[in-house]
């Protein structure tokens, strides 16, 4: 077989049934090998769309996502998706074609140094010089993408390597998997248990590392056993069982008041698979100022990176959480947190007839089918989704957290639908973000993917505009999008039906119509451009200094 055929063989060897990409000159041998192969290729309409679809596929399923691109512009178009996957720890293998080695380094047509370009936004990037190394390199790429802290890996394959003859040698996998071992952490575990017993106001700060460690059952057992209140990051939404009364929601810049106040008051912060991101901590020096810290992570570089830990453990949360659990008497603290939650609940009593996005999203959350996957883009709607929708798994909430990439949502929703065809895939996007990868409507059309699209349209780059209003003296530089296209007509051009609404009394019937339609559907929701996201922790402030007293209808 050829190197290209070997690539496809190795994809099947790794259980890859679906890949996303776009063909071009330097990757034509691999596309030829894909032709009539058992690997289903989803043609996206931009390589970035292919990259984000691979991420959506991976995040919704837990499997490694695979994307393909040709050399030069094809590969450079993947870079943003790779950076997104790196920041959010998503296992992705990107395979790029490269010009033949005979012309490598000559500034050949569509030649660019993809290896060099990609190194800072992957776990590692490989360039395959010899077809004899191809199988080992691809196997290493899949292993690396999934191991430890997951992330993207790129394999750049010159065209001559794709065309070279090679034999396939099956990999004899060792199926025995060693059980996670935390015996080497006995001292730290004992110290952590002591801190838990001494604490009066402990708080679990839960990040995306918990579900990536497949440790959600252990997490919820730990929370139940300890009676500890909890908060989550954006990536960990859906980690805590809905029935847990001491879950206070998301913390950070647009977190709940209850979460932010309680975290500032805690005397023991138990950080589980999270990384003290600046959107979480606000002013780091003022974050949880009285708290001792227990920090557990799989990535040694996250320990003590931003906040010194009193007890640090580098290991598997699935093994560590059960042995750490120790019950304490936190009844006064529990009552306090419950009171905070009660006192600072969301308000949906928005006056007037215009649609209030938080209420619409609450209604969407209540009406969507069980186990729906919600992808979103970046901006105000993204924060409203995190605040007002409820999820029963982090795999049901796909949001570009670390990189904050506008244009993420539509292709991610496509990838989610392909990875979980039995579940409903919902995209909540904004009018700015939607246009960033709008060409992927063609992918929906081509494959008749029943993705439900909700465009929250304020004719503005809303989050930037909000900051301009609050922190730049109302100088609205380049955030007016009032020349947006007619989104319903735009969808119709891709054979996607749609409907536009602007009044509260239209919402329920519109949502019902969208979900009852058997195919893809676009619901265009006009909202007031003055609506803002609250609460907000201003830059440089501590998390308890939230701006909450400017409800938009009182401005």
């Amino acid at each position, binding site marked *: 077989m050829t190197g290209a055929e070997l690539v496809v063989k190795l994809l099947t060897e790794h259980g890859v049934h679906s890949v996303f990409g776009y063909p071009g000159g330097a990757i034509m041998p691999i596309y030829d090998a894909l032709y009539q192969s058992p690997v289903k290729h989803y043609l996206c309409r931009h390589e970035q769309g292919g990259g984000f679809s691979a991420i959506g596929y991976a995040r919704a399923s837990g499997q490694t996502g695979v994307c393909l691109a040709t050399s030069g512009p094809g590969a450079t178009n993947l870079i943003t998706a790779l950076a997104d996957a790196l920041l959010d720890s998503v296992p992705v293998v990107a395979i790029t074609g490269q010009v033949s080695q005979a012309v490598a380094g000559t500034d050949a047509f569509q030649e660019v140094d993809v*290896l*060099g370009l990609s*190194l*800072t936004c992957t*776990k*590692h*990037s490989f*360039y395959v010089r010899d077809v004899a190394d191809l199988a080992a390199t691809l196997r290493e790429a899949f292993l*690396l993408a999934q191991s430890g802290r997951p992330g993207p890996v790129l394999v750049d394959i010159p065209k001559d390597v794709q065309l070279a003859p090679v034999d396939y040698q099956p990999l004899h996998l060792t199926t025995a998997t060693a059980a996670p071992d935390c015996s080497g952490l006995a001292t730290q575990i004992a110290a952590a248990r002591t801190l838990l017993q001494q604490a009066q106001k402990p708080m679990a700060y839960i990040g995306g590392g918990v579900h990536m460690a497949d440790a959600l059952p252990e997490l919820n057992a730990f929370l139940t056993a300890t009676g500890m209140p909890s908060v989550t990051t954006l990536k960990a939404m859906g980690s805590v069982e809905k029935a847990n009364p001491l879950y206070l929601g998301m913390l950070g810049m647009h977190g709940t008041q209850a979460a932010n106040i309680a975290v500032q008051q805690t005397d023991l912060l138990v950080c589980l698979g999270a990384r003290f991101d600046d959107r979480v901590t606000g002013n780091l020096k003022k974050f949880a100022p009285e708290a001792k810290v227990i920090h557990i992570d799989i*990535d*040694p*570089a996250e*320990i*003590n*990176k931003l906040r010194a830990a009193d007890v640090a453990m580098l290991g598997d949360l699935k093994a560590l959480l059960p042995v750490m659990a120790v019950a304490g008497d936190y009844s006064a603290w529990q009552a306090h947190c419950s009171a905070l939650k009660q006192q600072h609940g969301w308000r949906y009593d928005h006056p007037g007839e215009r649609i209030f996005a938080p209420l619409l999203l609450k209604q969407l959350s209540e009406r969507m089918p069980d186990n729906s996957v919600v992808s979103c883009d970046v901006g105000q709607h993204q924060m409203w989704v995190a605040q007002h929708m409820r999820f029963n798994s982090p795999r049901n909430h796909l949001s570009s957290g670390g990189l904050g990439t506008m244009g993420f949502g539509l292709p991610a929703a496509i990838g989610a639908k392909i990875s979980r065809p039995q579940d409903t895939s919902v995209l909540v996007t904004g009018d700015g973000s939607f246009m960033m990868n709008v060409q992927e409507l063609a992918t929906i059309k081509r494959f008749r993917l029943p993705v439900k699209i909700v465009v929250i349209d304020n004719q503005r780059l809303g989050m930037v505009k909000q900051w301009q209003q609050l922190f730049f003296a109302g100088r609205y530089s380049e955030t007016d999008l009032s020349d947006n296209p007619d989104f319903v007509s735009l969808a119709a051009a891709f054979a996607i039906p749609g409907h536009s609404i602007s009044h509260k009394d239209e919402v329920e019937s519109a949502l019902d119509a969208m979900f009852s339609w058997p195919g893809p559907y676009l619901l265009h929701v006009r909202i007031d451009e003055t609506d803002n996201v609250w609460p907000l922790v201003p830059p440089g402030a501590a998390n308890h200094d939230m701006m909450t007293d400017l409800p938009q209808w009182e401005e």
Partner: protein
Amino acid sequence: MSNAAKSHQHTLTIHTRHEAVAIERLLQVTRYRGFTLAGLELKPLADLTGLLITLSVVSDKPISLLVNQLNKLYDVLDLELHQAEAGALRA
């Protein structure tokens, strides 16, 4: 009197795979994580199976931040930090 944190010099000995990309990554990470390059020497191992690199950096940040990031690199096989500091560079 400056309130700036004191900068320190640190020296790392790093064994990497024999790949040019290993050097690229070392330098990228050093720059990106806020460490100033103060010296770089490298030589291939006698059997050409790897590179032995001596990297000197200056920063007011804890050296552990760099060590932890470098240790994650695919091509880094071993890393040793020499604790001998050149001392404070700024008052």
